[in-house]
Structures are given as structure tokens and as C-alpha cells.
């Protein structure tokens, strides 16, 4: 029951998608704890003024009441017409913090001080925007498991200027963060290639034997594109030459080769570590997962593709 109420409360105010300009229907205002205390103090002061017939006491109390009203509008104004947008978060390894980047664009020629952003699970961030300033805030959420991590609803609030009134608004970022498997620590060294020690850079002098052609992928080295074949058929997609290395330079990271005593997550964790190692060593490596094969290649794009395959292996979508 309580959980149901909490869930219902969490949906109040909606989850407006980004990018977003905060208009008056999206900004909510309520007094804070100190604001309520201020109200009680005003009541006590009003009673005192009535009791002692203090005309200037009335004036003081009414001035403070007016100040409360003005504080409300100033808090509202601090958020009003602020623009929010998001960019794609960088993939992180499980156990690290996923940083959801949220951009705040202040088009107004006034500063917007003391803006606070929070997301369930993330640390609260306070920033001040100068006039006409755009800043990006990373909402850091701890991660535990590989796969896609969807951001929760972001609350943007401010108590500026008097701290008596809180104005807030919600936004729901859509960009998910890819959480990669955690690289195994103390993992064994890279497995040996088919014909030689790991870590030995393939000679790459073209002595490998041509084996077959397949569709071109963005990560393929330009050296391996079948330019002649493609030139003959300009309308066909580019083809890539596949080689079977008699030089043994290609490293295959194959899930099936790992000891069966390890759980799937441990296996993925080890492979992730190996992908990092292989990439660091500048090796030409391929990845074989049940249902997925990534042909040997190297470079950051290849590394990202391999890690992504590892992160999403066996997960829906």
C-alpha cells in the first residue's frame, strides 16, 4: 500500500521528455520547512501586534508577508524559461558511476543561482548559472549490473533567494547509459593466438592468405576492402577481404573456450578484461559469443563494438 502511494506520488508532476523549456505549468512551488517556520513566526508576530496594538508591528508583519509572496515569485523566476537538454552518456563499467549529462541553458540575461539537480540514487548537484550561460551537469548514479541503465526522473529545484519557498520541476532523460561488464581483476593473461605468443603484433605484411569476402563493416581496416571487386560493381556495397592468418596474428576471444566452471557473468567479465588488454596492446582481435561473431580488427570503434556485444549478451534488446 505504502509502496503504491509512493509510486503514485512519484508520477505526480509527470515526466516531461527532454529537451524542455520550463514554463509555468511545469514549475511547482511550495513552502519549505523554514518557510513554514517563517509562517508560524509571522502568525505569532501578528498576534503580538494585535495584542499590543502596534501599528508599526502590523506594518512589519505585512512587509514580511509580502516578502514571502515576493520570494515565491523569485523562486519561480529562477527556474522559469530555463532550458534543459541531454546528451548521450558515456558507457561505463559496472561498479563505476554512470554519468547522465544534463545541459542547462540560461538564455536570460540574469543569473540563476543555487539550482539543484537530483535523481534517485544520484548525488544532489548544486550549480549557479551566470547570465546567458550553458552548463552541463553529470548526474552520477552507481551501477552494479551490465546492460542498459535507464535514467530516472530528474528533479530540478531551487530555494533561492530566501530559502522559504521551493520551486521545482521534473524532467525525464531518455538517453540510456550502457553499462559494460566489470573487467575481471587478476584475470589470466590473454590467450595465445593460433600460432604464437599473445601480444606479438601481427606482421601485417600481407602474407596472410585470402580466404573469402564479406560485407563491409565500418570498423574494417581500409586495407582489407576489396577495392577491385567494388570498382567492378559500383552499385554493390563494399566488400571486405577475409584472411585466415597463416601468420597467426589474429586473436580470437571466444566465450566457449573459457572454463565452464565460471558463471556466464564471470566469463563475460574476463572477456571484457581481455578486450581491454588486447586493445591496449594494439592487437588484432575478434570476439566470439554464442550467436555473435565479431571479426578480428582493432581500434576504438572495434573495441566499443566488442564491449557493447559483451554488455548486451543474452539481454533483451
Amino acid at each position, binding site marked *: 500500500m505504502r509502496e503504491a502511494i509512493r509510486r503514485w506520488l512519484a508520477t505526480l508532476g509527470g515526466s516531461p521528455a527532454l529537451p524542455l523549456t520550463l514554463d509555468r505549468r511545469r514549475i511547482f512551488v511550495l513552502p519549505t520547512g523554514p518557510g513554514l517556520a*517563517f509562517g508560524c513566526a509571522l502568525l505569532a508576530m501578528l498576534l503580538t501586534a494585535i495584542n499590543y*496594538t502596534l501599528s508599526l508591528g502590523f506594518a512589519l508583519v505585512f512587509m514580511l508577508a509580502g516578502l514571502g509572496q515576493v520570494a515565491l515569485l523569485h523562486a*519561480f523566476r529562477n527556474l522559469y524559461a530555463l532550458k534543459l537538454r541531454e546528451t548521450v552518456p558515456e558507457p561505463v563499467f559496472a561498479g563505476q558511476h554512470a554519468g547522465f549529462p544534463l545541459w542547462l541553458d540560461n538564455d536570460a540575461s540574469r543569473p540563476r543561482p*543555487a539550482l539543484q539537480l537530483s535523481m534517485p540514487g544520484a548525488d544532489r548537484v548544486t550549480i549557479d548559472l551566470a547570465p546567458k550561460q550553458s*552548463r552541463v551537469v553529470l548526474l552520477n548514479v552507481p551501477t552494479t549490473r551490465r546492460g542498459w541503465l535507464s535514467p530516472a526522473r530528474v528533479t530540478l529545484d531551487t530555494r533561492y*533567494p530566501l530559502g522559504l519557498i521551493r520551486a521545482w520541476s521534473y524532467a525525464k532523460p531518455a538517453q540510456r547509459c550502457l553499462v559494460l561488464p566489470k573487467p575481471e581483476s587478476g584475470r589470466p593473461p590473454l590467450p595465445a593466438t593460433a600460432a604464437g605468443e599473445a601480444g606479438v603484433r601481427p606482421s601485417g605484411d600481407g602474407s596472410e592468405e585470402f580466404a573469402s569476402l564479406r560485407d563491409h563493416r565500418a570498423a574494417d581496416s581500409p586495407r582489407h576492402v576489396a577495392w577491385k571487386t567494388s570498382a567492378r560493381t559500383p552499385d554493390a556495397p563494399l566488400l571486405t577481404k577475409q584472411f585466415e592468418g597463416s601468420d597467426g596474428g589474429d586473436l580470437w576471444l571466444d566465450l566457449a573456450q573459457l572454463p565452464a566452471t565460471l558463471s556466464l557473468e564471470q566469463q563475460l567479465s574476463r572477456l571484457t578484461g581481455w578486450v581491454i588488454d588486447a586493445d591496449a596492446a594494439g592487437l588484432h582481435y575478434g570476439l566470439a559469443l554464442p550467436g555473435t561473431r565479431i571479426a578480428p580488427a582493432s581500434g576504438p570503434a572495434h573495441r566499443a563494438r566488442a564491449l557493447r556485444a559483451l554488455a548486451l549478451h543474452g539481454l533483451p534488446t
Partner: protein
Amino acid sequence: MKWRRMTAPKVAAEPLDQARIAWLMAVAACALVPHGSHLPGWLIAVAALLFTWRLAQWKLGWPGASGLVKLLVVVACCAGVSLTFGRLFGREPGVALLTLMLVLKLHELRSTRDGHTVVLLGYFMLLTAFLYSQTPAMAAALGVSMTVITAALIALTGPPAAPRALLRHAAWMMAQALPFMLVLFVLFPRVPGPLWGLPLDAWSGTSGLSDSMAPGSISQLSLSGAIAFRARFEGDAPPARDLYWRGPVLSAFDGRTWRQGSSAQRIGDGLPHPVPGRALGYEVTLEPHNRNWLFALETVATLPADVRVSDDWQLLGRDGVRTRRRDRFESVLGARPGIEEWSGHLDAARQLPRDGNPRARQLAQTLRAASPADTVAAGLRLFRREAFVYTLTPPLLGEDGIDAFLFDTRRGFCEHYAGAFVFLMRAAGLPARVVTGYQGGERNEVDDYVVVRQSDAHAWAEVWLEGEGWRRVDPTAAILPSRIERGLADLPAGEPVPFVARVDLGWLRSLRHQWEAANNAWNQWVLSYDQQKQRELLSRLGMTQPDWRLMTIWLASLCALFALALTMWAMRRSVSADALARAWTAVDRALRPAGLGREAWEGPLDYAARVGRLRPDLAPTLAQACRLYADARYGAAPPAAAARELKACARALRRQRIPPRR
């Protein structure tokens, strides 16, 4: 635009930094200084000590007060307050304890929450300062204090900023709050206080006439220039010599002191009998004097609803006058009350102590004449004939004071003359009594109020004559007619004349009149703004039958109006930014039918360059439009002005694009 990337800092329960602590100390200083004039000395010393200690801790890094020290201070100060005031509750002890709380809280500043407590205490201390003084100067001073406290509140919430910027921000917010304050002040239904019983000390320190008269009691008052009340006449003010403002009537004499008698105890709701004659209407604004006496001209003919009158024609309110009060009376000048006086009162008005003052009694027998009226005339003649001196510093009189005054010293003040005269009349067998009150008053040309001061306090006599009633006899007028004509300013040389009564400083007097008129306006319209004044003002503004419901509706509507205006102000900036975007779209719309629309990827300057190459005839206008937009959007140019010029450009382009390229 600046582009900066930031990572999330950890935000825990924020401890207060040095700058914020400084602001809170400023709050305490602003809130406590106005109380310096009335707090007991030892408490001021303790507060100053604790404050200085905190300042040293802030500035020089001294160690803070430990919990034990604070506890000891609290216990000792509570004991001190209870010893000084006799209790821990009520106005004075309450203010003393608030002071203590505020300074001690400065030694307990751990979080923003503590800061908020200090700020709220500060606001409350400002309110209590008004218990002691509500002058315009005090109001201005507390307005400044309020700005400082509000700036501290901003400092607690916002990022670090220069003190000057925070003060300016606070002042700006207060300026915006001002309309709300004015509306609430005028329209908030005023409830007459007090809501609950007030401690006895609530109204200490007010001065005025007393309910008894011993030699010296009025002459003491006469040196005070304090204002007793102000009157405004409907029509021309009568001359000062006719203005006898009736106060307590003293008909019991014990040989030394005159006190109120039985006729003062009998209080009715209406006048004892109607007073015929041409009535003069006027309004009296009475300063608080903590008694329920009201002052009206002799002889009052019409009473306001909540004013009662005693058998000796003294006007009484329901409660002591603790705040300025305003009443409208009508009087018939020169009318004599009590033609058919109750014999009990007349008997009481003939009572004298069994013995004492034998020489005066003897003298009274020689005054007896054929008719009572002649006896009165003989008594007055006596004062005129003999060498009596009117002085504010009469010699002290011992036993048989009236004898000593009449035969030995012959120097006295109005109370001596009135007392002696009544004694003589009683000894001669006529019913007589002493009336105290105020005589005269000074007209202020600036606002036409007649100002009556404590120095106008006076005592005169009343003698009851068959078929005539109580006749006013002022023996002082017989000694020194100018006292009645022109007030105390004409005292014989060498007398200590009250400073405010001096006539020789003409320019000073006119300056004083200006100042007092301003003060009176402040009193009438700010400090005494009550239910009655509220009604008066609202009906003057055209609100017929202003009741609380109508007032609440007006109040809510006006507040809503101000809130709306403020909201529009809050949303104004972005509206002008949108106007810029709209104008920029208008430029695009003007050229798109000609196939010259802006591509999504094109910046304004690139767009101007491209179209300029295609259509040189449009180039100057478009270049100007694009420059305007770029400056307003990315530069410092004001968007509102740019939007207007941009719209003009769009119109020009729409004309120029013909013939369109098909």
C-alpha cells in the same frame, strides 16, 4: 556563451561558512541595537560580552563557548531576569529572554537551520522594538535592519556574493513587497486589542494627571512639553482662554491632599442632564496615559457611545487609555452643569476636616456676604488685592498648608490657588470643589490641530450657586490673567519656563509646528490607524458600508493583482527573448517563398553570405537582419530592441523579394 563542464560535488548537510556566520552576527547586531535603550544594564553587558566573544571566535579563531558555559549563562540570566522584573513572563522579561536567546544562538551555528533560527529571532526582535518606540526615525532604522536581515537570509540560501549585492537584492525584494504591505496595512481588518490579559508592566512610563492633588503635583507636570492630546475643531477654534479641558474632579480634602469624592464614584451611561445651547463639535486624539479619563471641553453636551460620565461630569472610557484614542465630542462653552444637584453631593462639597488652618477659616467668615455670588466675588477680590505671586517653584508648606500659603508665603501655583479658594468657599458655607484638567492649548497653523501639553495642566475651582449650578471660578486668572490668556510663556522673569513654551524664538516655534504636524499626521494615519480610522478612510475612498467581508474581498483582489503584476514581471525577460525568435522566423518566412529559406545547418552569418551571393539586391537588408539577430542572440545586444528592428527588416525583405525566382 561560456561552456563549462562540471562533475557533481558531494553536497552533505552544509556547515555554515565564515561569510554566512558574519551575516548572522550582523543580524544579531541589527536586531539588538534598537533595544539598547531599555534593556537592563547587566543584560546589555552580558549580550555585548557574548557577542564580542563570538566575534573574536570568528575573527581571531578563539575557542567557542562550551555547552557548560552556555548552560551556566542561561541559568544565571534567567535568575537575573526573574530578579530584575519579578517574573519570567510578560513584555519586559520576554524581550530580555529573546535577547539572550539570540546571542546564545550565535554560539550554536552549525547548519543553515541554525541560521534560519537566528533570522526569525531577528525579525521578532524588530517587532518587539516597536513596543518601546514607534517614531518615524525608529521605523526608518528598523527598515534598514530588516534589509540587513533579509540580505542575510539570501546569503544563507544563495551562492557567495558581495555584501553590497546582497543588500541591493534584499532592498529590491522589499520594494516589491511594499505594495502588499500597504494593501494589507490599509485593508487588513483591525481587531481592537488586547486579545488576552496583559501583564501590569505593559503600559509603564506614561505620564499625566493624577487622581489626587497635593501641592507640587501639577507644577511637576508643567515642566513637561509632552503632548497630552490634540484637538481639531469643526470650524474655528475658540480662544485659548475659553478652553477648559475637564479632568478629574477632586471634592474630598484631608487637610493636605485633595482626592476624588463620592460624586466621582457614581457613573452613569448618559449625561446627568441635557445641556442646552449652541454645541461646538471637535475631535480629541488623546495620548496614552494609562487611566480611563478622557478630556473634553466644559461643558460636554454629546457623548460618543462608549464614553460614560460621572456625576461630577468627568468623562470616562471603559478601560485605561493605553494607545492613542480618538473621540468626537460636542460641548457648549460656558454652560453650567448641575442646577438641580443631589443634596448628598452638595453636602460632600461642603466637607472640611474638623480642624486645621484656623486662620483661613477665620478669613472665610469675613468673606461671607449677603448672597453666595457676592461671597465668591469677595474671595476672588482677595486674591487680586493681596500680593500673591504666581510661581512654578513655590516654597514648601508644612502643617496647615493653606494658612501658610494665604498669610505667609503667598507664592504658589494653580493648585495652591484652587485648593485655597475651595477651602475658603467651603469654610464660608458654599459647596465647592477642585477641578483638574488642562487649560488652553496651542494652535498649530500647519495642520490646524490645537495641541495641549502636559505643561497646560491646570487646576481651578467650581462653586455651586442656587439656580445657577456649578460655576467655574479660576483664581489663577485673578492672579495672573496672562496665564490663562497666553499659557506659561508669560511667567515672570526668572521662572523656569518650559522650553517648548518660549515665544521669543519665532522661527524655532514655526519649525516645531512643522515637526509636530508631521508627527501628528504620522500618529493619526499610521500609529492610530484602527477600526474607526479604517472605516473613515474606506468610506472616503468610496466604499459604502465597509465591513470585514467587503474588505477581505478587496484585500484578496488587490493582493492577487499585485501578485499577477509581479508574475508578469517574472516572465517578462523570456517573452522578449521569444519576440526575437519570432522576428527571426519572420525573416525566414519572408524569403522562403522566393526559394531563399535558411537551411537548418546554416548560421545567420553564413546564411546572409549565401543569399547575398544569390540575390545582391537583398544583401544589405539581409546582412543587417542577420547581424542584428546574431548580436542579440549571441552577443550583449538587448533582445527586445533587436526584435523590433528585425521585424522591420522582415517587412522590408518581403517587399524586396519580388519578383520571386521561380
